[in-house]
């Protein structure tokens, strides 16, 4: 098939599935609603693989600057300069499509089992759920396929909408409704910047097409051919990054993501861990040329990434809600990705995105499996020792957890290591050390969760008879994803390299080669991760050691000496409370932003009612007063008074006519 056909059908199939489910689901499909979406996403994945195949074949002779395929003309920005609906099929898109669609497929399959009760009856809103899911897959595909900034914005907003709808899936829960709104609004704050960035791009380059913009940036000239100022490019990059911060929940716009866990767990896995939240990373990578042209922007991206990674990890240490721990770990991992982007290791960041999708989705789905078995209970203090009751869940969770912790030879080990390595090699080496510290914390909090929830003697929350393994619909995706968590990383590693790590593995492999054309222009610029450091693998050993140490500490604290954590919590007092209360960011926003804005709204409403209407009242009072005055003199109800008035009026008119005739 042609690239264009593939590019059309990949997003369209899930959309058709979703639309059909939405239209006829409630009446006819009912608890068979998943099939349409499942087929749609599945076919889409097949098409994405075909696309991948084709792009790989063409890789040699394809010119990336002309890789946009125009589908139709969408919006006219003035006299025939149409902004098109165009798609771009380059390696980056292929990687993203594969990641998104494969995780989506797994999540859809999982949801079939998850969105039912123990008797196999579908939950209320089953068809709605799958329709939204299909809509999300469509939006995400649009996002990654987009060939210009406008279409990117479309996908960007549509995934926001799907996220909003899915977080608010249990809309009757006030917390879910609030979380949905919060997610949308915080994203909109980012989109405000993102939108301004797009406008500024148009203002500067006179176009929104990726290829045209990027080539102009590379040439260092704006639309009129004048030299592009660094200030302008930095502004553009930072505005775009605003959008990325919103969508990828980076500091300080991270507040929505933990709350987003109010949604059904498959949604958290798909949208708020594996795919949608990585859109910001994708966007920055996509605009790597722009970012690379501005050292300041790169510095800010890297710093915010590192800060978020550390910040989220510290919070994750103290949380008890399994999904929230995972949410903060997602924040933290996203921080890694931005760290990677910030130090110029775009391919590594995308690599981490790709590996992260699998193990994090697996972790979330595992948490969902636990939740399903514990009748909705998710607080790790309420249960333990699930290992025996739920072996598949346990093992897959453990594998994915090891991957997250950066255990050697698992997927994240390679990708995370690359990022830290790139950071250490560059001028912002201290970011690398933050990354290492975070890696330690990550291993600790991941295994804190695993040890508390799965090990030890079996304890179950009230009302749950026994821990039981979930059904086939749920366990198969878990296993598939666990396999992914183990082996996904090997596409980014050169195997059987005797000089490599463990005399077998050398970082950077087919994955990076495949992506190389995309980042060629950008990576050449400021910071490169040269091969020179690859000879010594001290970093790999170090991070492996840190992971092991973290896991050991967690075991020691929570299995061996369960009193220690409490002692530390008590000892550290205010710091613990700070972590536990998520640094009071929500409260700060409420106090500093929401309330003043609300006050301002009240103020405006008051101005309306009193000031403007008051002025109106006064203005209206003038004729009224005149009328009352005249009434006293003239309108007494006497015929002659009126006659006099008529006569005077007549005279005025006659006088006017006479003098002007």
């Amino acid at each position, binding site marked *: 098939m042609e690239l264009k056909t593939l590019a059309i059908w990949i997003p369209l199939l899930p959309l058709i599935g979703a639309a059909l489910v939405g239209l006829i689901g409630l009446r006819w499909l009912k608890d068979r609603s998943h099939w349409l979406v499942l087929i749609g996403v599945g076919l889409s994945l097949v098409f994405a693989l075909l696309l991948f195949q084709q792009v790989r074949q063409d890789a040699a002779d394809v010119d990336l600057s002309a890789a946009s395929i125009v589908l139709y003309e969408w919006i006219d920005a003035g006299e025939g300069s149409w902004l098109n609906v165009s798609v771009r099929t380059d390696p980056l898109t292929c990687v993203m499509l594969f990641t998104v669609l494969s995780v989506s497929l797994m999540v859809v399959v999982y949801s079939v089992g998850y969105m039912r009760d123990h008797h196999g009856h579908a939950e209320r809103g089953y068809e709605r759920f799958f329709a939204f899911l299909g809509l999300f897959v469509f939006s995400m595909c649009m996002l990654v396929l987009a060939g210009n900034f406008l279409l990117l914005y479309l996908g960007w907003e549509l995934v926001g909408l799907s996220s909003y709808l899915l977080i608010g899936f249990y809309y009757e829960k006030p917390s879910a409704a609030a979380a949905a709104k919060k997610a949308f609004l915080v994203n909109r704050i980012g989109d405000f910047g993102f939108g301004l960035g797009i406008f500024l791009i148009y203002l500067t380059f006179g176009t929104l097409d990726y290829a045209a913009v990027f080539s102009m940036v590379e040439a260092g000239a704006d639309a009129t051919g004048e030299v592009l100022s660094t200030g302008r490019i930095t502004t553009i990059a930072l505005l775009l990054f605003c959008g990325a911060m919103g969508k990828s929940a980076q500091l300080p716009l991270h507040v929505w993501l933990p709350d987003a866990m109010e949604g059904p767990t498959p949604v958290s896995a798909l949208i708020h861990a594996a795919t949608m939240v990585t859109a910001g990373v994708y966007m920055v990578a996509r605009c790597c040329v722009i970012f690379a042209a501005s050292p300041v922007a790169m510095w800010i991206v890297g710093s915010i990434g590192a800060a978020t990674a550390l910040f989220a990890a510290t919070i994750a240490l103290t949380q008890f809600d399994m999904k929230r721990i995972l949410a903060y770990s997602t924040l933290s991992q996203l921080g890694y990705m931005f760290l990677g982007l910030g130090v110029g290791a775009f391919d590594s960041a995308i690599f981490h995105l790709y590996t992260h999708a699998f193990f994090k989705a697996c972790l979330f789905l595992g948490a969902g499996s636990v939740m399903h078995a514990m009748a909705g209970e998710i607080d790790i203090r309420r249960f333990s020792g699930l290992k025996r009751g739920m072996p598949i869940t346990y093992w897959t969770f453990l594998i994915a957890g090891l991957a997250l912790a950066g255990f050697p030879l698992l997927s994240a080990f390679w990708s995370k290591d690359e990022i830290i390595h790139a950071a250490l090699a560059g001028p912002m080496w201290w970011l690398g050390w933050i990354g290492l510290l975070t890696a330690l914390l990550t291993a600790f909090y991941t295994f804190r969760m695993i040890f508390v929830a799965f090990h030890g003697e079996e304890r179950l929350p009230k009302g749950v008879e026994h821990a039981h393994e979930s059904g086939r619909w749920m366990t198969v995706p878990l296993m598939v994803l666990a396999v992914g968590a183990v082996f996904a990383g090997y596409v980014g590693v050169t195997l059987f390299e005797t000089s490599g790590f463990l005399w077998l593995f050398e970082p950077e492999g087919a994955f990076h080669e495949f992506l190389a054309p995309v980042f060629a222009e950008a990576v050449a610029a400021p910071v490169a991760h040269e091969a020179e450091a690859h000879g010594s693998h001290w970093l790999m050993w170090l991070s492996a050691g840190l992971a092991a140490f973290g896991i050991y500490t967690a075991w020691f604290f929570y299995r061996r000496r369960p009193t220690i954590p409490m002692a530390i919590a008590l000892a550290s007092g205010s710091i613990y409370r700070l972590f536990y209360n998520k640094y009071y960011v929500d409260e700060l926003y409420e106090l500093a932003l929401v309330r003043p804005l609300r006050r301002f709204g009240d103020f405006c409403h008051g101005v309306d009612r009193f000031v403007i209407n008051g002025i109106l009242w006064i203005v209206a009072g003038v004729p009224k007063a005149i009328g009352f005055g005249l009434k006293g003199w003239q309108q007494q109800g006497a015929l002659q008074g009126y006659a*006099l008035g008529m*006569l005077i009026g007549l*005279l005025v008119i006659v006088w006017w006519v*006479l003098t002007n005739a």
Partner: protein
Amino acid sequence: MLSQQLVYWAYGVGGFGALCVYFGLPKEGRPERRGLFVLLLAVTLGGLVLLFDRLLGESANRFVFSILALLGVGGAVRVVTHPRPVYSALYFILVVLSTAALIIYVGAEFLGVALVIVYAGAILVTYVFVIMLSQQSTEATESRFASVLDYDRSAREPVWAVLAGFILMATVAAIIVKRDWSDWDEVSAAAMTEKNTLELGKMLMTEFAISVELAGVLLMVAMIGAIAVAKKRIPHASDAVESPPRGEVGKTVDPF
């Protein structure tokens, strides 16, 4: 066209006329105004005579015309200013008669005669009757009689009314005067008055036949209407019986 001097003259006369009417209007307890009024009336009428003298130029019968005009205007002033309605009505007869004479004088003899018959003969009599009907001079209504005179003796907003009336007068006069009279042909106008009544009759019976019929119908309707209005049993103020609810007067009372 009038000369500029004449225009000022006319304005002067008008101004005096206005003052005259103002002071002539009845006002309670100010007898000295009467003298002023007579004086101003004399001045005004004199001015008017002079004005007409100029206007009429060398016309043969300007004397008669002026006299008739003076009678009419003076009578009208008295109608407006006299405090007793009966006298007003009588002065009005004077106005009608002098106007009729004027009209006959300019050649519209039928209209003039009809004026005398209809106005002086019919309408004025009705007026006098109504005045008599509404002026009970019995013992019982003595005090009321006084109050009746009271409202007759004080004018309402005299300043505004006189101003408005006289400015209106001036505007109408100005429009008349401003017309270009050069195309006026005295001879043909005189020719039209030769067999005035006959021509008029012919016109009324041919060209305006329908209008005449309509006028007749109008008269009849008015007559019926007048009877209907007057026949309604209106509670007299002195009866002090309970009045029907407002708005139901016409509904509850059969006109015939």
